[in-house]
């Protein structure tokens, strides 16, 4: 498995009104092509910061980030697409126009980008909502539009920052199944940030647990089990307990500091 993403001893410090805050300290990790790698950890542990670095939106203060062997210094929509928390759709664009956004920026001709977007609407389950505006869609649909917008530019890497965080539990479970299906068909490399143990265990090939601030890597759990996973199987139940004890410890620390 070749290493598509390499994070090497990365530090990040933010300057706030109450002094500097260490968001990340000495974080190193490597993600191979085709992996579904999940970052999990307490709130404020720098998961989103790390994801921002992979996407070229945040610059590290120390260390380096390589994608495909090249250092990341700016967003590169030919290699990396991002799905944001709370969808981040353009309210003046329809479903179709939102999905087309990335292609539009890349100068793809109108007919071709429209064809690509229309083709995506089927698997997104949005065929009947092509002309609707974000405010006319449910939360789950909006998130699928955001995923569609990321898939449309067909990058080898997709970053997802708590894409289902704002959804109710049922929708969230269904969206997880749906995403798994998409991922298995497209074989993209996914780096996924979540707070949900269930999501992490059901979807990932690897889970990276991060510590409370300053964010460091606490442990890495490989999940070689085939999909779809029986969440009540003994090994997953055991892994869930292990994962929870680690996250619990860090969350308590984060709460104690706050």
């Amino acid at each position, binding site marked *: 498995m070749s290493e598509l993403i390499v994070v090497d001893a990365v530090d990040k410090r933010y300057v706030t009104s109450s002094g500097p805050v260490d968001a990340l300290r000495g974080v190193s990790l490597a993600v191979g092509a085709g992996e579904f790698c999940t970052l999990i950890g307490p709130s404020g542990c720098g998961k989103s910061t790390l994801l921002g670095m992979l996407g070229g939106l945040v610059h590290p203060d120390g260390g380096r980030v390589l994608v495909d062997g090249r250092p990341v210094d700016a967003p590169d929509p030919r290699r990396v*697409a991002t799905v944001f928390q709370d969808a*981040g759709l353009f309210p003046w664009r329809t479903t179709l126009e939102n999905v087309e956004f*990335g292609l539009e920026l890349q100068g793809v001709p109108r007919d071709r980008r429209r064809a690509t977007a229309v083709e995506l609407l089927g698997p997104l389950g949005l065929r009947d909502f092509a002309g609707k505006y974000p405010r006319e869609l449910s939360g789950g649909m909006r998130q699928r539009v955001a995923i569609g917008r990321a898939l449309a530019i067909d990058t080898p890497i997709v970053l997802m920052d708590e894409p289902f965080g704002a959804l109710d539990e049922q929708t969230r479970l269904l969206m997880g199944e749906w995403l798994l299906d998409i991922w298995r068909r497209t074989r993209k490399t996914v780096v996924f940030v979540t707070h949900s143990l269930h999501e992490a265990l059901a979807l990932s090939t690897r889970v990276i647990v991060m510590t409370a601030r300053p964010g460091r890597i606490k442990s890495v759990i490989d999940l070689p089990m085939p999909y779809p996973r029986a969440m009540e199987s003994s090994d997953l139940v055991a892994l869930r307990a292990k994962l929870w004890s680690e996250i619990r410890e860090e969350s308590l620390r984060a709460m104690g500091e706050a």
Partner: protein
Amino acid sequence: MRVALIRVALVAVLLGIWELIGRTANPLLYVPPSAAVPALGRLLRLESYPDLGEHLLLTVREIVVAYAMAIAAGLGCGFALGLNRLVGRAYGPILAALYAVPAVVWYPSLMLFFGLDAASKIAFGFLLGFFPITLAVLAGIRQVNTQLVTVARAFGASGLTVFRKVMLPSMLFTLVGGLRTGLALTVIGVIVGEVLGSKAGMGSLINHAYGLFRTADYVALVLVTLVLIVGSDAIATLVEHRAQRWTE
């Protein structure tokens, strides 16, 4: 249909009251509609003021020039202050303080500075139109959702693309609203400027008729000016609809 009916009824009632008061009061001070309509006819046939066309044209030209300047300066100032934090923090409070001053206090000094001709009217119309446009740009920029800017950047948008594809559509409603208010205030500024002191333009005719107690002519001139104002607002509404279509 019912809205139109209610509207017509209100206008009819107001006209009735106007007629009643006009007939009972001093005819030098109050002109009933029955006298205003013939006066309007005389005005439009160029009997009372043969040079009406020139005055009307002058006022329209003053408005156009003042509004064009207000748009250019308002957009320039608004974006300079809104997009640059340092400039915004340095000059924003000055702008707000100036806006709080009733604009009419500037007019005497504008007349002293620019004279009695068109320039002082243009300057006053510009001054009134400038603030709402600038403030609309500033409000519009504050409305832009920073997450959407981040999204656009992640998809490879340059600064200019972010401006075109995220900022402009986000601010459009506020911006067009400000441009519309700016036009209304520019028109008011120019006409008020003419009424307060001028040698030509609709305002000067209004002043003339009023000063000579030609009250019926005065009312007719006000009606023509009203058409000018309503007409400019109609154009603004048209532009607003265009802008809405463009964002969709």
